[in-house]
């Protein structure tokens, strides 16, 4: 068994760290590639992997890279505890164990021919970036792309250069806001829901995809409904404690759903009766 490529979802496959890029003071993007001779794996936007640091632990991290590139996997990781800290401190040439990809994906098929509204808060932009890549690389298949992104402060914003690039195209509308502006910020200040008044939306031909802290997502849901979108056209990415990622350990249950295999992406219509329940 040793040395062979495994497709067993329980066994991590060693991947080499090729690049560690700093995005913000506490967030890093890791680019991983399969070892020589091993096949890469493809993924759907919104899926996640379980990343294992030898002897330390394993974490569910959304894939934040380009789904069209099959020779690599990119993850944007925020260092908040011991396990994430060890992950972001990997050096080029180290090995990280990868299981997956797991989970349901963003509705890139259902969104064909329609406008795509991406609403992200904080690190929530990471699992949505593959959607943005998908839309931009298949431009004819989609309508307008509207990106609404909110972060804590200017230095906590992810992918600033890419956001600027995306904003340059006329069919895209990119709006960014921060909770705390700081000294030199000339952009919007306020929570991400305040961006809706500037967004040019056609609600009846739009699909919205939302990812961020749960509180932020609840307010964004309400705002999207106020804007006229249907509940079946709104999708969100949920998060719960995960251990096995294959629906067998029971930890990630949210109501009747297993976040790891029924989600993490759900239609708002499925989540609506659950989101308001405290301590579900």
């Amino acid at each position, binding site marked *: 068994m040793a040395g062979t490529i495994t497709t067993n979802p329980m066994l991590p496959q060693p991947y080499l760290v090729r690049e560690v890029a700093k995005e913000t003071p506490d967030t890093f993007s890791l680019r991983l590639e399969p070892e020589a001779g091993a096949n890469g794996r493809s993924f759907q936007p919104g899926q996640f992997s379980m990343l294992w640091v030898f002897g330390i632990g394993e974490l569910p991290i959304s894939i934040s890279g380009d789904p069209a590139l099959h020779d690599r996997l990119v993850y944007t990781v925020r260092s908040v505890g011991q396990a994430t800290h060890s992950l972001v401190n990997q050096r080029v040439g180290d090995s990280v164990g990868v299981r997956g990809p797991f989970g349901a994906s963003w509705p890139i098929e259902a969104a064909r021919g329609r406008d795509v509204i991406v609403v992200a808060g*904080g690190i929530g932009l990471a699992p949505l970036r593959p959607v943005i890549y998908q839309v931009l690389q298949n431009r004819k298949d989609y309508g307008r792309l509207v990106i609404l992104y909110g972060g804590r402060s200017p230095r906590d914003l992810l992918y600033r250069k890419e956001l600027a690039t995306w904003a340059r195209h006329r069919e895209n509308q990119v709006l960014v806001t921060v909770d705390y*502006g700081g000294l030199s910020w000339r952009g919007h200040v306020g929570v991400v829901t305040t961006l809706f008044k500037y967004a040019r939306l056609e609600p009846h031909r739009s699909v919205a995809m939302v990812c961020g*802290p749960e509180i932020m997502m609840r307010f964004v849901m309400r705002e999207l409904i106020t804007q006229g979108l249907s509940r079946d056209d709104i999708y969100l990415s949920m998060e719960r404690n995960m251990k096995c990622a294959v629906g067998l350990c029971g930890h990630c249950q949210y109501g009747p759903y297993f976040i790891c295999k029924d989600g993490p992406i759900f239609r708002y219509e499925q989540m609506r009766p659950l989101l308001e329940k405290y301590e579900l």
Partner: protein
Amino acid sequence: METLEGIIAEHHFFAGLESYYTSLLTGCAANVRFAPGTYIFKEGEEANEFYLIRSGKVALEIFAPHRNPIVVETLGAGDILGWSWLLPPYIWKFHAHAVQDTRAIALDGKCLRTKCEENHDLGYEVLKRFAQIMEQRLEATRLQLLDVYASR
């Protein structure tokens, strides 16, 4: 060319207001423009007008000792700027700083206050609309306070 009355009547904030009232409001209105960098009003000044922003960007700021001004919120096209004119003590609580070339319609709050006292129906319509703005701002501010993006 769009008339002042037309702009006011079409603004979503005044939607549903009877034309008699929009005429009244137009009587208190004027077109204004602020160059980038101008302070529209400052904290502590008497609040006698409010603005319908038509284009540009205005930052609501607060000064703290030994610090540069902190932006608490930015407003843009379609937003209503200022409600301290409506309720005593009629003093501005923040600075309003035009950070871009900003065009707006200024409404004479003092004049409107008097008209609201005389005509309570108008007063009710105005207060209803401002209450909604305050509620939205309060909700947004509370969200900001939650600092949802912080790592615990």
